[in-house]
């Protein structure tokens, strides 16, 4: 029941915010903050009280879930409301809670119109994301997957900034929606295909994760279905040829939207690959791995090169996300325990560093009303302690040791090396490019002669605490990533087992409906 509440709380909170708008602008903010705080606390309590490193020895017999909830939804087609929690989803839900709080806090002054509706959308996105992380009925997963898009569309379309060169927020929102919707369609087709294949073999309709994992699918069909899932997630991650929506959406979205997009929406894709693509189609994924890794390498370079060429600070950060997600993709398809654990750390780390950078650029925007880096320069002396924080987040983004990003990237690379040494060697060059684009940002924004001597408003307490909080977490997980690693260890071990030893699945797990 706890899991249902985790999903419901943001939705209910969102409705309350919407109604509270009648009273004034402040109540919705506090309600939203309280909602996300509650969500975060609940998750942390689960984390504290649960034990997520169990079933390593027990193997397939023991349930891999720490918590489970099951209720029928559309029994005719075997669709259930089936929620389950393991270490991986727990970490990501905690991340969602934390970034949710940040998103509310960072839009405290930025959003002034239709505050209630804004928070409704914000919280519904988060609710949808939590649903994605918990659902293990494939139909339900798809439901939440689509659900989180709609409020995001409104968030960009209604509260976004219209950017330079005729790029409008509506255009960006539409692009985002079409890309993700079209890819969602592919996933739906793949889900249905899998369900029908299962039905054809067993005569029972089911969308359950455990059932479908054992669905007997021919190799060729498995390849196609796997591609359906992969492309859906690849658009969201994003993987390079399909990344077009991301820079526009980021550049035009309000700060809270960017934080959520980079921090958690991109992570749903990585989560989907880890949870569904790999375990459902181990052989097909194994065969596809070289292509996926190549795409990851292309992403690293392409993102990094484009980041260097941007003038809009938020577009720059958006392209760096593409570059970082390249590492995630490589790690996922390397499939070793070390690489997969690294992916988890990297996801969390990137969420923090990207959120920090986006919040920082939002704060700069609030002060000088531009995101064009050619209009900046010499901000170091004018902004109080903000440049210091940007420096830290920039360092995190270029993978400086001591930050969680370093742990993530290097674990991915260490873990991938035995599988694909050349991929690692090439991807490592991406580290140099990361240095180039990160320091480019520092150079253009903070260094150089000041455009004016007038000091700008420094950080207030709200902003200072927010940035300090993120930074503390980045450093904490950089020096002691063990909490993350222990929590996700069992889940990642399971994926690694399925992925690297596909023969095992068919022999150990009971087949057919039961």
């Amino acid at each position, binding site marked *: 029941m706890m899991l249902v509440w985790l999903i419901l709380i943001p939705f209910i909170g969102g409705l309350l915010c919407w109604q509270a708008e009648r009273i004034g602008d402040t109540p919705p903010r506090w309600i939203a903050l309280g909602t996300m705080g509650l969500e975060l606390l609940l998750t942390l309590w689960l984390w504290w009280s649960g034990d997520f490193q169990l079933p390593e020895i027990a193997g397939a017999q023991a349930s891999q879930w720490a918590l489970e909830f099951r209720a029928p939804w559309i029994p005719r087609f075997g669709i259930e409301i089936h929620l389950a929690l393991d270490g991986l989803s727990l970490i990501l839900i905690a991340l969602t809670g934390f970034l949710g709080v940040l998103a509310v806090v960072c839009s405290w002054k930025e959003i002034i119109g239709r505050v209630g509706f804004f928070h409704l959308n914000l919280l519904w996105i988060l609710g949808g994301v939590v649903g994605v992380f918990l659902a293990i009925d494939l139909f339900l997963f798809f439901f939440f997957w689509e659900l989180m898009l709609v409020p995001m569309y409104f968030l960009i379309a209604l509260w976004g900034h219209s950017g330079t060169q005729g790029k409008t927020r509506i255009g960006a929102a539409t692009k985002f929606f079409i890309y993700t919707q079209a890819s969602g369609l592919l996933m739906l087709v793949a889900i249905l295909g899998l369900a029908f294949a299962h039905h054809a073999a067993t005569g029972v309709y089911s969308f359950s994760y455990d059932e479908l994992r054992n669905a007997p699918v021919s190799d060729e069909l498995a390849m196609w279905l796997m591609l359906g899932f992969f492309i859906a997630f690849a658009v969201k991650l994003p993987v390079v040829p399909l990344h*077009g929506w991301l820079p526009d959406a980021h550049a035009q979205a309000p700060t809270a939207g960017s934080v959520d997009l980079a921090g958690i929406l991109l992570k749903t894709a990585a989560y989907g690959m880890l949870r569904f693509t790999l375990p459902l189609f181990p052989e097909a994924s194994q065969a596809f791995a070289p292509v996926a890794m190549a795409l990851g390498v292309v992403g690293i370079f392409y993102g990094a090169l*484009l980041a260097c*060429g941007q003038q809009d600070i938020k577009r720059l950060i958006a392209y760096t996300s593409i570059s970082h997600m390249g590492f995630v993709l490589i790690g996922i398809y390397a499939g070793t325990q070390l690489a997969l654990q690294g992916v988890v750390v990297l996801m969390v780390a990137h969420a923090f560093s990207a959120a920090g950078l986006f919040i920082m650029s939002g704060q700069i925007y609030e002060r000088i009303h531009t995101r064009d880096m050619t209009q900046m320069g010499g901000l170091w002396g004018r902004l109080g*302690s903000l440049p210091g924080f940007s420096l830290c987040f920039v360092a995190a983004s270029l993978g400086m040791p001591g930050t969680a990003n370093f742990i993530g990237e290097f674990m991915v690379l260490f873990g991938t090396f035995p599988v694909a040494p050349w991929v690692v060697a090439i991807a490592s060059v991406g580290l140099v490019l990361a240095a180039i684009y990160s320091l480019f940002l520092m150079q253009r924004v903070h*260094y150089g002669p000041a455009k004016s001597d007038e000091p700008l408003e420094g950080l207030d307490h709200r902003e200072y605490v927010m940035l300090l909080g993120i930074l503390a977490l980045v450093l904490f997980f950089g020096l002691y990533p063990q909490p993350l690693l222990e929590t996700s260890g069992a889940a990642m071990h399971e994926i690694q087992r399925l992925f690297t030893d596909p023969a095992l699945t068919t022999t150990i797990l009971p087949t057919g409906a039961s």
Partner: protein
Amino acid sequence: MDLSISLLLPLTFLLPLAGTLILSLSNGRLGERASATVGVTSMGLSALVTVLIAWQYIAEPQVYGVTLWRWISVGDFQPSIGLALDGLSLTMLGIITGVGFLIHLFAAWYMQGEKGITRFYAYMNLFVFSMVLLVLGDNLLLLFFGWEGVGLCSYLLIGYYYEHSENGWAAFKAFVVTRIGDVFLAIGMFLLFFELGTLDIAEILNRAPQMWAEGDPTVELAALLMLGGAVGKSAQLPLHTWLADAMAGPTPVSALIHAATMVTAGVYLIARMNGLFLLAPDVLQLTGIIGALTLLMAGFAALAQTDIKRVLAYSTMSQIGYMFLALGAGAFDAAIFHLMTHAFFKALLFLSAGAVIVSCHHEQDMRRLGGLWRQLPLAYAGFIVGGSALAALPLVSAGFYSKDEILWQELATGHGGLLLAGMIGAFLTSLYTVRLIILTFHGKPKSDNARNAEAGRGLVHGVPLIVLALLSTFLGAWINPPLENVLPAPAEGEEFWHLILELAAAGVVIAGIAVGAWLYLRRRGWLAKHTSSGWGAWLWTFWNHAWGVDDLYDRVLVKPYRGLVRFLRSDIIDRTCSLFAKLAWLLHQGLSRTQTGKLRFYATSMVAGATLILLALALVP
């Protein structure tokens, strides 16, 4: 005894870290004095702790290990935040905290009246923290932590005067170029972990000989990758271009980071991984060749610089070239010994240069200085002592003993070519040192800044210079780094040849000084004439640009990169994907043309459509 070292060891880097935290969290509330006090005190305490550690170590030399906590633990991948103290790391630790403390102290004088002292000391302390971690880390990942950390601090401090974009770009260049080296080091780590299943340095050195025979391609590759990292950090060919530009930072920074400590990290790395390099003789050979080429290249470049700090920068490259030369001959202890004496005399030279620069109102161009020896006696003394050590003046200077050891090892191990390069380098060194001192301190002052030089005063200014000056004389050479158990024993040879070599080296140095003095005191006009026209001018420019490597990289790497970025800027892949949208738009345009709004048109098209369908039905059976 052991307990006490394990308690003290973390303090050596936690104290500077505490300094950084206090300074950065003070959020600008600390004044200039308070910031300097925090920065210098934390360093002083750290140096004090090092003295205590050294005391205990000498009483009972062994490898002390402290594991603070398990950093990452996944399967076999178990790097810890663990420290290991042996003779080598103790030597490095002593240099870092000792010289570091003196430089911090001097910086309090140098930086007075500048904006952002808090920031300066925060960076400096962070640098010391990272550097100590680099030398104490017992595994490669922690070493890499420090390695990158010093790179970041170097970036921050080079770009300290951020108002000038050139400084920022110099810092940018330094970071990116060294990062290229770092990537090699990282890949080397991946390879070593994959092959040996551990990152612990002692364990790697233990397992490597069991795993590989001498000259095995894998171990050669691993050593080559490590060498790549070392070359980047230590500004050796071909990744040396950043160091000269790095002089944009404040002079104490150049003294600490770009002379005494960080740039020698590469030497430390190779010495630390000596077991691995000994298994890879080809790479070791390459190390020596790189050292030889760099020391010659930098020596010629130093001859043609006009900026006082750039001369010192090229001389640093050249001296590190000597260290690589020693490493190449397998004389790791000679390299570390030279590293130590170099830290003393180069820090002294940089600080003296700093004294000159501040006294002359930030004039760094030697063509505009001159005649300063009367006004700035202390700086002059610093230059004389430091310069003699740099040129390896026989018997009295520390540099003589360390350089002699290197040359002797080249001879004893039969590296004739490297020895020759070292000899030529020694001549060049004494030549440019003499030039540096004469141009700066002798002759007539050539600008108002030089005429109105104000000598620095106070203990903060004087003490570091005097202490470093003492260490740069033969007194410094008496310090015997406890390297016996860590590094392979030096090669033995006949004493007779050693004596001959010493005499020859001394002869070369004295000849260099004599030629230099003759050229720059007596034949200045002749020199000026020949360097301003014809071949001389070309050579001068060529050396002034350090053999044009920078321009070459600019053409081969930077410009194409920029072109690529500009080419990709508008995201061509996205453009391609947008073609679908364009296509839909065109289709829309076409179809919406048919919506004329005219009733009769609609009726006609309906009829036409119906007719077509009927026809189709009639024709297709």
